[in-house]
């Protein structure tokens, strides 16, 4: 029986008087009409058309996480350890990210609720606020590092810090000024793909492909176990799996309007994003590996210093591409992380939170987004701030905050009352448990290295 829309609402137990139609709904409905039309089409390109319409949150979250501090971590990895263990290790971390992010996409498609909203509703405000505090602190610290990266990257071209921060804020305003999720997503996707600029930089270093292949197959040469190695390992994990990604992808999935019918293509979106981001990450390690070969110390390098150090090896053009890559990484992530915070804020205080909102209806959403970014940008301008260490530590803190965040995600994805038949299958639960255990153990090992360095040295065979 073909029920009319109002009858369908009544059948679902919704009082028609409760239904308030907003501009946000109208914009999302237009997007869904195009998806439905593409799904109804037959022909060789219909599947690609549907995929094109549905990709976005997965690619954006993965390329967004290839942010300023992440690219600097990968660059530091290549400069400290060269080509070896870390190439396959970074790919493994992206596999972990796929396991985790698939759950958020499934949750968003099934419940049409953001992650913060679900935690508050389902587990109550006590645990909800804990999660929000973790997210708020993590996002703010990460935002600071994005501005550090932008400042460092533009510094290579002689742009003064105030102008670098100012241009990043202007970019943020322009990115959200369209007041339309679809337009914002497509624009940011086009810019985010620029993350692959690290691939030509890697090619300019004329890498030894035999060594690259050998590293992927054997995971060797292995780095020695030391506290420095551990910090790089944690920084590389934190460069791939962080709490803001959970909140962002689920909220973006809801804002885009994905439904349970779209889950399969949502998975492809997530895997595609991980593949692109892993390619850029591996390319960055390969690009800075010559610094390791030439025994150049890179302990206190920011983005611009890596570019300057690479200049004698790959020329001014290659170095400029590297610096631009760092700027792009910081710019895109400053947008996605600010939006992740604003989404979570709106969900928790039950204020409108969508990129489809006109400014008049989304004052709180846009204010949080801009104020967070502006404050983080202003902090970067404080003279004498120890910026270098902050960058690596932010990724370490992200890894430490991940297990508590993952447990809530795990419980929600297995909550039959919320998810129905879309609860996580056994294999997904096994993989998610492995990720939680792995992240927790990595954190514990870091703790041991700080508190009991002798025991750690013993574990490392020294």
């Amino acid at each position: 029986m073909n029920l009319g829309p109002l009858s369908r609402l009544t059948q679902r137990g919704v009082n028609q008087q409760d239904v308030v139609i907003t501009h946000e709904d109208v914009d999302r409905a237009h997007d869904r009409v195009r998806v439905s039309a593409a799904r109804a089409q037959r022909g060789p390109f219909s599947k690609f058309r549907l995929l094109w319409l549905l990709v976005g949150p997965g690619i954006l979250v993965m390329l967004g996480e290839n942010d300023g501090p992440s690219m600097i971590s990968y660059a530091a990895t290549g400069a400290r350890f060269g080509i070896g263990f870390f190439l396959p290790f970074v790919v493994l971390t992206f596999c972990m990210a796929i396991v985790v992010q698939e759950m958020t996409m499934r949750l968003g498609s099934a419940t049409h609720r953001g992650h913060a909203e679900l935690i508050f509703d389902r587990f109550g405000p006590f645990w909800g606020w804990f999660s929000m505090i973790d997210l708020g602190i993590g996002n703010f610290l990460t935002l600071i590092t994005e501005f550090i990266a932008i400042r460092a990257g533009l510094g290579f071209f002689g742009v003064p810090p105030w102008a670098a921060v100012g241009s990043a804020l202007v970019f943020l305003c322009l990115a959200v000024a369209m007041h339309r999720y679809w337009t914002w997503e497509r624009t940011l996707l086009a810019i985010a793909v620029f993350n692959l600029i690290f691939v030509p930089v890697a090619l300019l270093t004329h890498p030894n492909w035999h060594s690259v292949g050998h590293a992927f197959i054997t995971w060797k040469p292995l780095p020695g176990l030391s506290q420095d190695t551990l910090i790089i390992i944690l920084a590389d994990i934190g460069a791939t799996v962080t709490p803001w990604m959970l909140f962002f992808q689920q909220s973006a999935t809801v804002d885009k309007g994905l439904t349970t019918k779209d889950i399969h293509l949502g998975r492809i979106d997530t895997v595609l994003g991980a593949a692109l981001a892993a390619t850029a990450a591996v390319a960055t390690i390969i690009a800075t590996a010559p610094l390791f070969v030439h025994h150049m110390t890179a302990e206190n390098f920011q983005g611009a210093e890596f570019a300057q150090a690479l200049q004698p090896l790959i020329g001014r053009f290659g170095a400029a591409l590297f610096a631009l890559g760092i700027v792009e990484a910081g710019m895109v992530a400053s947008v996605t992380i600010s939006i992740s915070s604003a989404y979570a804020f709106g969900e928790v205080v039950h204020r409108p939170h969508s990129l489809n909102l006109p400014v008049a209806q989304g004052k709180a959403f846009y204010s949080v987004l801009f104020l967070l970014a502006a404050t983080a940008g202003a902090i970067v301008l404080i003279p004498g701030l120890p910026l270098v260490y902050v960058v690596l530590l932010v990724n370490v803190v992200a890894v430490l905050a991940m297990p508590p965040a993952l447990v809530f995600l795990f419980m929600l994805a297995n909550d039959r009352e919320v998810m129905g038949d879309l609860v996580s299958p056994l294999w997904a639960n096994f993989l998610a448990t492995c990720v939680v255990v792995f992240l927790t153990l990595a954190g514990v090992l870091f703790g041991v290295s700080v508190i009991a360095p002798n025991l750690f040295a013993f574990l490392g065979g020294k």
Partner: protein
Amino acid sequence: MPSKDKGHSSITSTDQELVLSSLEPEQLAGLKKHLIPRRHLKGPERFVIWSLRIYLLFMIVVVFYQVWASLH
């Protein structure tokens, strides 16, 4: 009939029809004010969550110590 929110006067009845026919009820922004029923955590779940919370707080102290030690 569903109502239009204040400030949404430009929404036409065609728009309303489009929204109601193409979005699932739970996707409507206005209906998100309805809370999802609360779930009470079981003993083992509380144990895991509290353990990880204590782990996080402890590790943050470790990180601060590491920063302090590095700066000195």
